[in-house]
């Protein structure tokens, strides 16, 4: 790939505060339909905008990115020139993202993730679209092949439900609303509250007053997370060809991910409450510095388990029991969710007499705590690890309401074995696996002699 200039958007990070300083007053005036004030703000900030444009052009003209002889060379900087060289053989995955406003200006963000063993984990560039695709194809080439996963109809709905992350989407949306209100002066949160209030009035016909508000808030955030998931998984396809896993999808943000199958370090199945209801679980893969835990590559059901084995040849189901439940300590698993459940139950009993309006909220929290207790109870029987005949590891652990089944395909692991005094006397420990993608998997109540005897060689 011949050297090309980086897209000007790559250098926005250097002038973003200047831009924000200039653009926000103009935007506020425009949103208030005050064109005269907007023009005044523009003329006042014209000099700053011209200076920002000058900096952008200067940096853009001095930049280049090219791939030749297996080395990716990126040159940046004006006064202090910084050519950076990256070996293409160390690349484990490449992501090409095109958010909506990038697409308007013909830009694409390329994230190149590297395999384990080096200090650098990833590098991010913004290139013109054609060159970004060319670079991705050159770094991780994939031949055309049939899709192994292309959800349509009910499968699509299931995939959307499995990919939705209610907590992350809710937190992100609350922060975004506050940020927008602060910068632009428009209280978007008031609009959302208005919608929630209307939904509450609707639900109040069927539910008690406190519960209707709670249900309205939950439904609102659920709808938001489903919408985000729907947009992210629009026309999602996953293909494996020539040793490369290729995933594409997204409506507002087009995302293309190319992952080298030989560089995949771990695959994780997340058995969430939704997954249990739908009898499908999402599969996430990580490769070197590429974490891949935001979007699954596959929704795996009992009937298409061989698909995962064709996709990841080293994947295998655990060939021996992961743990011995008789040697586990139930209090270690149950003390947190159990004590929380007891506390919430006590508070619920008190609130039913004194503050009935809070009772629905406490009831909901109690249900969640009891669900977590059940999940941790399952962990007593399932949490553990085993080394398979093909020298990969299978781990299983429970956190919150989710059971995770992880397969590790790399020998680049390190272990931490922690023994509390009481557990040490009973021959138990907590075992942590540290992987190159900076995931740490913690297993509770593992037999110390098994953890101590683990061998690293594959």
């Amino acid at each position: 790939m011949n050297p090309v200039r980086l897209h000007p958007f790559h250098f926005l990070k250097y002038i973003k505060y200047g831009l924000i300083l200039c653009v926000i007053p103009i935007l506020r005036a425009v949103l208030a339909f005050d064109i005269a004030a907007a023009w005044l703000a523009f003329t006042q900030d014209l000099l700053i905008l011209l200076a920002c444009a000058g900096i952008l052009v200067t940096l853009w003209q001095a930049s280049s990115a090219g791939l030749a002889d297996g080395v990716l060379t990126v040159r940046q900087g004006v006064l202090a020139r910084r050519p950076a060289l990256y070996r293409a053989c160390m690349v484990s995955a490449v992501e090409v993202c095109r958010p909506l406003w990038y697409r308007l200006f013909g830009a694409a963000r390329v994230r190149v993730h590297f395999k384990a063993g080096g200090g650098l984990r990833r590098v991010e560039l913004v290139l013109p679209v054609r060159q970004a695709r060319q670079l991705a194809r050159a770094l991780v080439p994939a031949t055309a092949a049939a899709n192994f996963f292309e959800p349509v109809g009910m499968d699509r709905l299931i995939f959307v439900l499995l990919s939705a992350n209610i907590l992350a989407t809710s937190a992100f949306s609350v922060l975004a609303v506050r940020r927008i209100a602060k910068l632009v002066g428009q209280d978007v949160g008031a609009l959302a509250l208005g919608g929630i209030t209307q939904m509450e009035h609707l639900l109040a016909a069927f539910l008690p007053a406190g519960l209707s508000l709670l249900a309205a808030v939950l439904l609102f955030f659920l709808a938001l997370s489903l919408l985000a998931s729907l947009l992210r998984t629009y026309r999602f396809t996953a293909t494996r060809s020539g040793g490369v896993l290729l995933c594409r999808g997204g409506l507002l943000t087009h995302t293309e991910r190319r992952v080298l199958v030989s560089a995949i370090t771990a695959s994780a199945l997340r058995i969430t409450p939704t997954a249990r209801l739908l009898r499908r679980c999402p599969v996430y893969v990580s490769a070197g510095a590429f974490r891949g835990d935001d979007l699954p590559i596959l929704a795996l059901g009992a009937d298409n388990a061989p698909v995962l084995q064709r996709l990841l040849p080293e994947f295998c189901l655990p060939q021996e029991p992961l743990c011995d439940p008789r040697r586990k300590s139930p209090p270690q698993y149950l003390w947190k969710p159990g004590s929380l459940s007891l506390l919430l139950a006590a508070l619920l009993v008190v609130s039913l007499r004194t503050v009935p309006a809070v009772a629905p909220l406490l009831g909901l929290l109690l249900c969640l705590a009891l669900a977590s207790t059940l999940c941790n109870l399952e962990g007593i029987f399932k949490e553990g690890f085993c080394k398979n005949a093909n020298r990969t590891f299978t781990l299983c652990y429970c956190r919150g309401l989710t059971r995770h089944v992880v397969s590790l395909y790399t020998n680049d692991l390190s272990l931490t074995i922690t023994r509390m005094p009481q557990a040490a006397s009973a021959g138990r420990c907590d075992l942590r696996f540290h992987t190159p993608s900076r995931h740490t998997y913690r297993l509770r109540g593992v037999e110390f002699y098994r953890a101590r005897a683990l061998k690293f060689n594959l």
Partner: protein
Amino acid sequence: MNYTVTRKGALLPALWLTALSAAVGLFVWLFFSFAAGAIAFLLLAALSFALPFLHRLHYQVRVIPGELTADRGFFVRVLRRLPLRCVTGVVCLSTPLGRLLDASVVVVYTSGTALLLIGLSLADAERLRLALTVGGDPS
């Protein structure tokens, strides 16, 4: 190859933690009272001075074929195991106080985590660094 922490090596983190306790005591004094600050400092200093010495009783760093293990802790025992071929870098730091006490800080990096060893002697730190990077036991 076994490495342990000497009494002087344990003194290094003890002094650092004591200095931190003094900062906390000063903070408490500024916001509450001198007596509260003094009590906070004395309690924290006693704890932070004792813990490194207790910690060193079981402290053992070993380089065995293919693996680096670090066994530490008194109340809570922690055993770290790193495969040697996955070590990506080793950093040995020695501060003026550390050189006075013949104690150093060694950080061993792998691609997924880092191992911090405080209190090894300067000679042991150098031997460990050579064993991890060059792969030999210097005589």
